């Protein structure tokens, strides 16, 4: 535990090194919180600079708290509990209220901006993520990741007045200055055919009418994270990845699986957004996450959460490149690995898993939230050096699970730092893409990326079920074929698999809180468990849903031929996939050919090999889908 301000960092390091422990904080130039409010655990997820004081409001994802941090000293001035797994934080227009979304808590909190006391709670099912307040302070916009919607909450009546169709997995919501619009980034691509590039959407909402007025498509992009605006609101920077999933993954060996960058979006007029990379030819900066622009618009900072780095990008230099690219002088500029040297002026090492970044009111400092370090790195924006690090929790030994979490989110062990586990399993889930994963021939055995949430107890793994446990799935095989680094220590495998097994299922909005099924779900369950056809003819074992998908997670652990072997599939039998969280994990089947649950049977079960479905009425199919969504 935290031992007091007099204890020196050097002594800590020495003592703990002797004990063979791993420190949760960076020791060099670290300041520790100097009051009694130090946290056991923080996980800084979001930072807001208070407009009057310049203090930092930090959302602690793992500590379920919001804290106020003195921007000069790093001292925690006060703290308040939030709901479970707070995700995003924003301030109301008057500055008197703060709003916090809590993903697992399924709620939005209204806080007093001074005392941080919770004033009101708004229940919002569907995995609430980003949040923004309308200019008049009357409405709250809340991203619902699981439902691909933005809920509009009337703050006077405290009710959800409407749901707006967003992109795939709303992530960050921010009001653009002077535009009267709220921009919503989306984690995943809009649904596309599995052999087509990703299309990530930025959903634009009119603040006054609370209607979607534009959908900006980022061609070839996925994993939309943070968005920041220039001071006049005319330009936005969005953190994105550019997956190369259509290229066979034998390309891993050649260093080209996913590239990382940002999109420049004009908020005025009709301009095609431009995308640029932050990677170098032989070194990637995985998982672009947080973005912050300096008040004078001269530079912006972009975190690489997978490489524990913050990139400083010179706006004027970028504009030159932009101008050349727009004029056609740089072919395929969006995939050009040689460009980032021209506008990335510094690559600043920070703590583990930096996600959020914010700029001080005077523009002199960038504050970086190192989520898995429980610290804030302070970067001097003139020199682009880390000048201080604020520890937000007391130093302690990391648990096996925490070390696994670091591994999961770090790209450092992957060839050229291209990606972390979290790059393809963002937010501990899935990226919605189909990959040609192994060097078994071009286009052979393309596979849908599976959801990591609630994966514990669903062995075996791989679509062909050849890996009996997570340790095998994420061990040598991963190191050899995916990370291309060839080796993981036994301890690392244990740590990683321990973490993966700890990933909880998402809170399912399709399931009633009391666990009772709806009438349609009950009917669907009857169909799921039926032993005879509608005409009374007995079904064979494999014609029943619950034979291959038994139990609370709906899986069997065996392989079955459900008639989905394609012309480029080597295997006909596939793992009976677990159904946990299946409502949110489209596309479906081993190669992602089914865009929706319905299509599994309406388009891809013509021979009744994936259960006997020929006699189903449309109503029965609907009921079954409702039941499946309750897993």
């Amino acid at each position: 535990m935290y031992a007091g301000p007099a204890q020196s960092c050097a002594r800590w390091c020495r003592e703990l090194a002797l004990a063979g422990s791993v420190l949760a904080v960076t020791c060099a130039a670290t300041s520790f919180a100097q009051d009694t409010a130090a946290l056991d655990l923080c996980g800084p997820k979001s930072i807001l600079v208070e407009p009057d004081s310049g203090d930092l409001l930090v959302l602690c994802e793992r500590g379920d708290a919001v804290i106020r941090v003195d921007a000069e000293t790093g001292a925690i001035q006060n703290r308040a509990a939030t709901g479970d797994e707070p995700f995003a934080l924003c301030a109301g227009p008057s500055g008197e209220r703060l709003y916090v979304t809590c993903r697992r808590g399924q709620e939005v909190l209204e806080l007093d901006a001074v005392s941080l006391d919770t004033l009101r709670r708004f229940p919002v099912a569907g995995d609430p993520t980003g949040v923004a307040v309308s200019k008049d302070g009357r409405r709250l916009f809340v991203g619902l990741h699981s439902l691909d919607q933005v809920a509009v909450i009337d703050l006077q009546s405290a009710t959800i007045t409407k749901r707006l169709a967003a992109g795939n997995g709303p992530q960050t919501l921010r009001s653009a200055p002077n535009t009267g619009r709220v921009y919503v980034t989306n984690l995943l691509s809009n649904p596309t055919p599995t052999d087509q590039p990703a299309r990530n959407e930025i959903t634009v909402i009119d603040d006054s009418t609370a209607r979607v007025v534009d959908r900006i498509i980022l061609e070839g992009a996925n994993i939309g994270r943070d968005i920041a605006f220039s001071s006049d609101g005319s330009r936005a920077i969005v953190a994105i990845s550019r997956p190369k999933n259509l290229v066979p993954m034998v390309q891993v060996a050649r260093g080209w699986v996913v590239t990382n960058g940002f999109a420049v979006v004009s908020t005025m007029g009709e301009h095609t957004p431009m995308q640029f990379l932050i990677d170098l030819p032989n070194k990637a900066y995985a998982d672009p996450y947080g973005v912050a622009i300096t008040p004078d618009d001269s530079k912006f900072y972009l975190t690489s959460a997978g490489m524990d780095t913050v990139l400083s990008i010179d706006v004027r230099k970028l504009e030159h490149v932009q101008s050349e690219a727009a004029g056609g002088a740089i072919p395929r500029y969006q995939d050009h690995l040689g460009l980032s040297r021209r506008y990335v002026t510094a690559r600043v090492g920070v703590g583990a898993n930096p996600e959020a970044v914010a700029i001080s009111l005077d523009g002199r400092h960038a504050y970086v939230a190192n989520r898995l370090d429980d610290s804030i790195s302070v970067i001097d924006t003139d020199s682009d050096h880390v000048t201080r690090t604020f520890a937000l929790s007391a130093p302690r030994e990391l648990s096996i699970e925490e070390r696994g979490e670091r591994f999961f989110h770090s790209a450092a062990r992957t060839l050229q730092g291209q990606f972390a586990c979290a790059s393809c399993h963002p937010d501990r889930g899935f990226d919605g893409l189909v990959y040609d994963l192994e060097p078994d021939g071009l286009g052979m055995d393309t596979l849908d990326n599976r959801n990591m949430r609630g994966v514990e107890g669903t062995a075996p793994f791989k679509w062909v079920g050849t890996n009996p446990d997570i340790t095998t799935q994420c061990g040598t095989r991963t190191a050899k074929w995916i990370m291309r680094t060839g080796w993981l220590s036994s301890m690392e495998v244990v740590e990683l698999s321990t973490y993966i097994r700890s990933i909880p299922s998402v809170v399912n909005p399709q399931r009633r809180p009391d666990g009772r099924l709806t009438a349609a779900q009950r009917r669907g369950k009857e169909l799921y468990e039926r032993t005879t056809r509608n005409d009374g003819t007995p079904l064979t074992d494999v014609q029943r849903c619950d034979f291959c998908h038994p139990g609370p997670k709906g899986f069997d652990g065996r392989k079955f031929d459900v008639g989905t072997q394609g012309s480029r599939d080597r295997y006909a039998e596939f793992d009976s996939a677990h159904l946990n969280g299946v409502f949110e994990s489209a596309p479906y089947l081993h190669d992602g050919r089914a865009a929706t649950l319905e299509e599994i049977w309406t388009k891809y079960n013509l021979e009744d090999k994936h259960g006997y479905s020929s006699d189903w009425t449309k109503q029965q199919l609907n009921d079954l889908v409702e039941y499946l969504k309750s897993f």
Partner: protein
Amino acid sequence: MGKAIIRAATILGAFACAASAMPPHFDTWRTFGKADGLPSDKILCVAATDSAIWVGTDKGLARYAGGKWRTFTPKDGLAHLAVMAIYEDPDTGDLWIATMGGLSRYSAGRFDTFNQLNSGLANDVVYGLTVRHGEVWAATAAGASRYEIADKRWTIYNETNTPMHEIWCYSAAACDDKIYLAVWGGGLLEYTRARDRWRDYNDPDGEMEIDLFRNDGLVHDVVASVDCDDAQRVWIATYFGLSSYDGRKWHNFMDHDSPLVSNFVNYVRTSGTNCWIGTDRGLNATDRKNWWTFQRDDKTGRGLVTYTPDSGAAERVETPTALPHNYVLGIAFSGDDIWVATEKGVARGTISGATARRAPIGADEPRLTKNTEAKGR
């Protein structure tokens, strides 16, 4: 002298409309068709939003904004070329589009398609729809589908769980807490959301050509369209006359006992407490007492507007412009204008106040024949 009469008629007409909120007297029509940029002259439906006019044709969806038409087809993501109905979600502004190949949602440039293969939609042939309370109600050839937007949940209503003895649904309308379905051959179905209850209304006598006991119920079971006015009256288009129902009493209108221009009623659309009626012989409007009829004289290409007051003699005005065709399939309102979908183009009706000729209806006046034959569609 002639000009003076025209002026007087216009002023009187306008005054009468204003005084009693009667249907306005549209006297100028502009037609849009293929030559103007529409994908087809065969217009199946029309809808107006704050920023655009949307037209459904047999060859795609068209948007009229800023004086220009733009066409959307399946290449743009539309579910099917044939667009049967269009409805704007009053909350979100999203456009829901009923097609012969499923349901599309058009939201800020993006089409999302829901069909019987990729969603819980009952059937790909969607004739009509309405959106209210965060729910989309789609009238399909195999019953009705309700899509709850918040939970992405589909429910099918057909002969198994409603009094629907026919499942060919043609139209849907929301009226306060009720949803009405027009069922072709199955009469009118009423769903009360709060009670989760269905009720059906059918023609008590089952006769086509006559209403055996007047105003005893729905005029006929072949129902093509339904809408609800501001007085919570339900208007029902059948192929054998027009019905209205205020929750207690029925009031039926046929061509032999009212100024309804034809018993073959394709479409009803309310505006305030008025009902506009699209038939195979032209366009009617009524407040249940006074009637307007808008027709095209195919011989002259001019318009004939007949005003039949609650009491007194009918009067006719001839207008230099007219609907492009008397077969009317859809009606929408945009500001002070009316948009009418017809067999040969969509027409925009405006009020200019300048009419060509007005005279009492006499034996020598041009008179269009009425049609009482049943026609399938």
